[in-house]
């Protein structure tokens, strides 16, 4: 998806899978030089504190690699669980659906989406 990576989580993640995801994702960000990561968790109905931590980790790692992380399509039940667990996911951008997440990422880096040759400061 252009400068952005789109990850869709379709199954309920268990710990090992989540760790693999974290590793693969960071490798991909590095390899492709992506500027944004979209994680679609609309199919995810159960989260635990570990999963919340993984999402936070991915966001922190991506930002070191100069990429923004947007979590999209979170279920209300998932949001309530994360809040009750005391994990408000600081530093992670959120959006209602993929479309809005994409718009958010595009809006956050206007200089990238326009002509790259022009700005040189």
């Amino acid at each position, binding site marked *: 998806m252009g400068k952005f990576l789109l990850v869709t989580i379709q199954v309920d993640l268990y710990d090992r899978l989540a760790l693999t995801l974290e590793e693969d994702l960071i490798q991909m960000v590095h390899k492709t030089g992506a500027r944004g990561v979209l994680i679609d968790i609309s199919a995810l109905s159960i989260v635990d504190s570990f999963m919340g931590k993984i999402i936070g980790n991915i966001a922190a790692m991506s930002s070191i690699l100069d990429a923004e992380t947007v979590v999209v399509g979170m279920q209300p039940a998932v*949001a309530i669980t994360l*809040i009750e667990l005391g994990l408000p996911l600081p530093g992670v951008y*959120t959006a*209602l659906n993929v479309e*809005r997440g994409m718009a958010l990422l595009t809006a956050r880096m206007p200089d990238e989406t326009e002509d790259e040759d022009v700005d040189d400061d």
Partner: protein
Amino acid sequence: MTTKTVESLREKHDLILTYWISQREMADDFGGNFNSSDDLKAQSSELLEIVLKTITPENITDPYSPDLQPLFDYISGLTISRAKQGFSPRETATYIFSLKDALLRALGEIITDDTQELYRTTLEVSKFVDNIGITSFETFIKGREEVILSQADEMAELSTPVIKVWDGIIAMPIIGTLDSARTQVVMENLLQGIVDSESSIAILDISGVPAVDSLVAQHLIKTVNAIRLLGADCVISGIRPEIAQTVVHLGIDLSKMVTKATLASALKYSLTTLQLEVRRVQKDKSN
């Protein structure tokens, strides 16, 4: 109580009924709730029948005997039907306790020779009828509590409507005190509303909340964070001066949230965020 006494009581069914009815009719609180004394008679006859059928020398002293269950069920049914007819609990209780007088009068006629036995039996019968009265009262209170619970549920549902005020803006007015259970309902409804309507701004109007303490503020902060996780923004509106005072005095930090004094200004802010504006239509005066 001996088996013989029980049998004699059963034989005297009609006599006891007559005593009971005549006593009810004489009593001051015999209200006009029954259309005729025939209704009273039919009901009393049925109840007496069941009481006499259930009572045995063994279970009269044991209020938890399983034999008594049909009687208790019948009493519950009777209490509910009388409550629906508009009887006060006092009326129902005196009605049941007056059975005691009738039974005791009949006992006095059965046991004529042995005063010790009469005394013992009287005590037993008295306890038995008291037990029936307590069952009736328990049923009454249970019915009340069910009504209260269902009303509380209804209130929780009624008082948290999600209103769509604009494309992409929903509002939820909260009326009444926010406790943990209520916040849960508010949060769930609001989050579901955001997902269903794909709104990007939610306005939480707390002008109907009488007081904000640290717990309520905590709940508000949680709700706002949860909304943020979904990818929407939350505006809290309707903060009254007293509430602003309390919040500051309690040292609660609401600076990370967007707060507005009125719903109108919250709506205006939301429209600005969505890059919309409200304008007065200029009529062309030259025409």
